[in-house]
C-alpha cells in the first residue's frame, strides 16, 4: 500500500477529525475545556499517548493475535498514560492537579483505542506515527478552540494561568478581553461545553457543504459522495 501522507494529514486534521467527525473522546473534551491552558495540557498529553500507542501497536502488529488484540492495546495505551501522568506530576504539578482524573482517563479515550484498532494495527510504522500525530493535533485543535470559546465567554479572559504549562515566561500571557466582566457561569459549566461543541460541529458542516457546492459548480462530474467513515475495526 502506497503511503498517502497527504490524505492521512488532512483526515486527521479535518476530514475525519476525532472530535468533530468521529465524535470520540468527548468525555475529557467536554469536561476539561474550561480554559485554554487545560485544553492544551490535555491535548498535548493525548497526542503523545496517541503517537506512542500507534507506534507500538503498529510495530507489534504482526505478533498480536486477532482475538486478544483489544486487551493488548489497552495495556500498551495504559503504559503510555502512566508515563505521561508521572511526567506531568513531575513538571506541571498544578496542571496535573487541575486535570485530575482526566489524565488517567486518557486510557479509555475511544479516539486512541479507535486509531489503534482502525489504523495502526493494519499499517506500517511510519504511517501510523503520522496518523497518531495528525489525529492528536486535530483533537488538540478542537480542544483549544472550545477552551478559548468557553474561557472568553465565561471569564472574559484568554490564556490565563498559562505558566502552569509553560513555566514563568508565560506569567503575563493572560489577555483580559473585558474589564470588570461579571462572568458567565453557563459557559464554564458542562452544558456550555455541549452547546459550544454543537456550534463548532455546525460550523464545520457549513464550511464543508459550502466547499462541496463550490466544487460541484466547478467540476460537476467529479462529485464525491459524503460517506460515513468507518472508525473502528
Amino acid at each position: 500500500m502506497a503511503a498517502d501522507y497527504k490524505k492521512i494529514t488532512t483526515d486527521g486534521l479535518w476530514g475525519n477529525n476525532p472530535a468533530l467527525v468521529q465524535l470520540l473522546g468527548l468525555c475529557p473534551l467536554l469536561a476539561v475545556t474550561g480554559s485554554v491552558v487545560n485544553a492544551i495540557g490535555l491535548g498535548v498529553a493525548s497526542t503523545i499517548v496517541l503517537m506512542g500507542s500507534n507506534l507500538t501497536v503498529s510495530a507489534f502488529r504482526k505478533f498480536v493475535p486477532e482475538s486478544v488484540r483489544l486487551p493488548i492495546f489497552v495495556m500498551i495505551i495504559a503504559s503510555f498514560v502512566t508515563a505521561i501522568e508521572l511526567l506531568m506530576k513531575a513538571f506541571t504539578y498544578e496542571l496535573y492537579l487541575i486535570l485530575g482524573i482526566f489524565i488517567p482517563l486518557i486510557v479509555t479515550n475511544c479516539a486512541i483505542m479507535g486509531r489503534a484498532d482502525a489504523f495502526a494495527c493494519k499499517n506500517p510504522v511510519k504511517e501510523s506515527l503520522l496518523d497518531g500525530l495528525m489525529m492528536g493535533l486535530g483533537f488538540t485543535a478542537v480542544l483549544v478552540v472550545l477552551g478559548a470559546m468557553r474561557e472568553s465567554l465565561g471569564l472574559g479572559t484568554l490564556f490565563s494561568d498559562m505558566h502552569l504549562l509553560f513555566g514563568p515566561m508565560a506569567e503575563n500571557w493572560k489577555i483580559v478581553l473585558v474589564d470588570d466582566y461579571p462572568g458567565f457561569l453557563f459557559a464554564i459549566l458542562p452544558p456550555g461545553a455541549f452547546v459550544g461543541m454543537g456550534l463548532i460541529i455546525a460550523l464545520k458542516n457549513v464550511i464543508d457543504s459550502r466547499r462541496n457546492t463550490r466544487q460541484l459548480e466547478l467540476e460537476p462530474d467529479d462529485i464525491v459522495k459524503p460517506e460515513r467513515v468507518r472508525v473502528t475495526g
Partner: protein
Amino acid sequence: MALIRTSSPHLHKASSTSDVMRLVVLATLPGLAAMTFFFGWGTLINVIWACLLAVGFEASIVKLRKRPLGFYLKDYSALVTALLLGLALPPFAPWWITLVGVFVAIVIAKHLYGGLGQNPFNPAMVAYALLLVSFPLQMTTWNAPFVMINGGESWNVLGFSDTLLLIFGGIEPPLFDSLTSATPLDVMRHRGGLTTEEVWSAIPVLAEGIGAWHAVSAAYFMGGVFLIYRKVFTIHTPLAILATLAIISSLFYALDPYQYADPFFHLTTGATMLGAFFIATDPVTSATSNRGKIVFGIGIGVLIFVIRGWGGYPDAVAFAVLLMNLSAPFIDQYTQPRSYGHAKANRGMKGGM
C-alpha cells in the same frame, strides 16, 4: 334552489397561532399591571425591552434561516416568550440580563431546534434557568413591594426615569440597595433554625409584604381563568399542578407545621400561578392528550414542592417545567387516547411482534 353544500367543520374562521398568542398577551396584562403597581416600573421596562429584543432576534434568525419574515413575525410567539421572561425576571434586573435571556430563548432554545412547534423545551424557561444558574446574584436581587417602604404610605418605589437609569446602568447601586428585599420563598429557604410561625412574625417581608405576592398571583389567576374561558387551553394542566402542590404541601404541613410552609403560601408565592397558567400550558412543550396533561401537571406539582423544599434554589417552577418538558413525549406515548373505530388505545412501546 342552489344550496351551497359544504362538509364539516363549519367554522367561519380558523383560530390561528397569532389569535391564540394575542389572547395570551391580553391575559398577562393584569399580572403585568399588578407587578408594576407593587414592584415599580422595572417589570414594565423589562417586558418592553425584552419584546424589542425578541422581535429583533426573531427577525434576524428567521432571515438567517431563509424563512419568510412576515409570516413568522406575525405569529406573535416571540412576543409571548419575551413577555413571560420579562415577567419572571426580577424587576430591576440589569439590561444585559434580559439581552442574554432573550437571545438564549429565541435563538438557542427555539430556532436552533427548528422554530416554533419544534422546540422540546419552553424557551422562556430555558432562558430563565440559564440566567439563574449563570448570574445567581442578579437573578435573586428582588426589590421590596411598595407597601413595605416608609410604611406603605405612598407609592414611593423608584420613579420611572430612575428605574430606567438603574436598569441601563446609569445609577449607583447604593441607591438601589435600600430597596432590595428577599422574596418570601428566599426567606422560607434561608431561615436558619426558626420555625414557620417565627418566620411569619419575625421577617418583615412575610409579616407586611406578603399581600403584594398574593395580589400578583391573583392577577395571574384571573388571566388564566380568562384563557380557559376562551378555550385557549383546557383546565387539566393548571388544575393538576395546583391540586398536586396543594395536596402535597397540606400533607407535609399537617405532619410538621413547624418546619413546612402552609399550602396557601406555596400556591400564592413565587411563580406558581404564572407557571401553572402561562408556562406549563404551552401547547408545543406539554403533553398532548387530556390524560397526558394531567400526568404532566402532577409531575410539575410534585417537582415544585420537592425542589422548593430540598433543592438548591428557592423557586422551582422553571426547573420543574423543564424536567416535565423532557418527559412530555414519554407521557404522550403512554396516554394516547383510543381513536374512533379502534377497540383499544394505541399505547406504549411497539415492536417485538
